[in-house]
């Protein structure tokens, strides 16, 4: 089993005066699959974004593979190590083709970039979005866009990412799509931290955590 361990200690994230994440401690072993559930606005997405350094007002210690991130080189390593499926994939201010989105995942590879991009394109084929690769992302449906981001994440894993941070990766999918995506995610040889309201997806995880008002508790 691959993957890197993830450690959070006393993580606090603020949105203005609100403490969206309020002193979270969490240890995830390498290769473990963790589902993060909770009501809307409880701080789940913010926590994920903090791991990637996308939330600027955060404090506490976050380690991935035992490494903290401070300098831009360390953040670059962190973002290479952690693939990300955003909650609301941006349709963007400027058009980006599906193919270009998939190629962006391949940038992460220290290894074979071409192979990583090929993997992402193959994954898009398996996920049923092969024929929209040459279309701008803003012309895709919500489900197609989500499959595209899932395919990109698979490319990132092929490129060497060892952690996958997925933010409601099945929210826009139909029932069959949810099943497929859940199976793909659960079988990835990486550490998984998935924000989800999807019970079936949570079932496939080793641990289920619940977040409420910025605090975390173990459900299972």
């Amino acid at each position: 089993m691959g993957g890197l361990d993830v450690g959070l200690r006393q993580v606090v994230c603020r949105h203005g005066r609100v403490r969206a994440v309020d002193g979270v401690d969490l240890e995830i072993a390498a290769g473990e699959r963790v589902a993060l559930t909770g009501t809307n606005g409880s701080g789940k997405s913010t926590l994920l974004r903090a791991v990637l350094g996308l939330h600027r007002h955060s404090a506490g210690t976050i380690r991935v593979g035992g490494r903290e991130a401070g300098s831009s080189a360390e953040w670059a390593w962190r973002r290479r190590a952690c693939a990300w499926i955003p909650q609301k994939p941006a349709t963007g201010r400027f058009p980006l083709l599906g193919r270009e989105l998939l190629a962006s995942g391949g940038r992460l590879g220290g290894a074979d970039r071409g192979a990583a991009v090929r993997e992402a394109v193959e994954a898009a084929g398996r996920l049923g979005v092969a024929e929209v690769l040459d279309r701008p992302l803003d012309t895709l449906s919500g489900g197609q866009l989500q499959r595209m981001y899932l395919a990109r994440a698979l490319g990132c894993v092929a490129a060497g990412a060892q952690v996958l941070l997925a933010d409601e990766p099945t929210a826009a999918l139909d029932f069959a799509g949810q099943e497929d995506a859940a199976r793909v995610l659960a079988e990835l040889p990486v550490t998984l931290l998935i924000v989800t309201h999807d019970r079936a997806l949570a079932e496939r995880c080793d641990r289920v955590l619940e977040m409420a008002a910025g605090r975390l508790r173990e459900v299972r």
Partner: protein
Amino acid sequence: MSAITVVAADVGALLELVPVQRAGIALLLAAVGLPVIGVVIVGLDIMPVRFAMMHVALLGVAVGLWTGLDPMVCALLACALAGGAVAPLARTPSGLSGAMGLLMSLAIAAALLVLAVSGVNASGAFALLWGSILSVGTADLVVLGVLAAVVPALFWWRRRDLGLLLHDRELAQCSGVPVRALTLLLLVLVAVSVAGAIKLTGALLVDALTLLPALAARRLGSSLTSITVWAVTIGVAVNLTGFLMALWLDWPPGPVLVLTAGAVVLAVHCIPERRDRSWRASASASPPAAPSLPSSH
């Protein structure tokens, strides 16, 4: 028939004049570099940049007149510095637009203050910003030539990174794009180009050369590369048509070029929106029911 021949002969005679030739070359060079800058302006959603840079350039001119340095060099320098200074505000989606407004107010206030303190005639400072396409000098041609070479080359070299950055900053960040450095470079380039273009052609023409081709291209292209190619194509076509028409009708080139470009933008927006196919059509054709989805590495 004979009237057309006479007019053609007139235009031909005008084209033999050196200032007219220079103006034509300047417009051609500008048509290669500046529409690409326009694509960045549209992509970063910083339309007020033209006004902001005009005011910053005025501040530069004022400082130049005050200190006795070359006012135009001061203006270009001031714009480059201002472009760099607002780069950190690009972190939030609305940050840049707001920053341009702030920059505009601060720059004009500072410029007026410098002019008042130094006792320079303010209208003299403004006059420098109303360039004329027919008074283009060799130095101006060199600036335009460098922009025409550097801007498209940079775009081609960094097209993947730029495409991601203009699409979504966070996605770019997570894809290993040096977002901060690239934003800084783009803003400095935009600021310098706009300031240079204002100086060459006057504030009105900047729109025709940078923004309008990009606005039309945004509608026609479906990716960064195709939009950029469309922008340059439209830029070259508009500049040539507009310039020849201005010579033919003996009208001032600036307004004619702007109106030509504006007409193209309007015409393009009247074309019904082209979507390759409806997503519904392809969604029904793609049941994602493949049994062997995962592949482990």
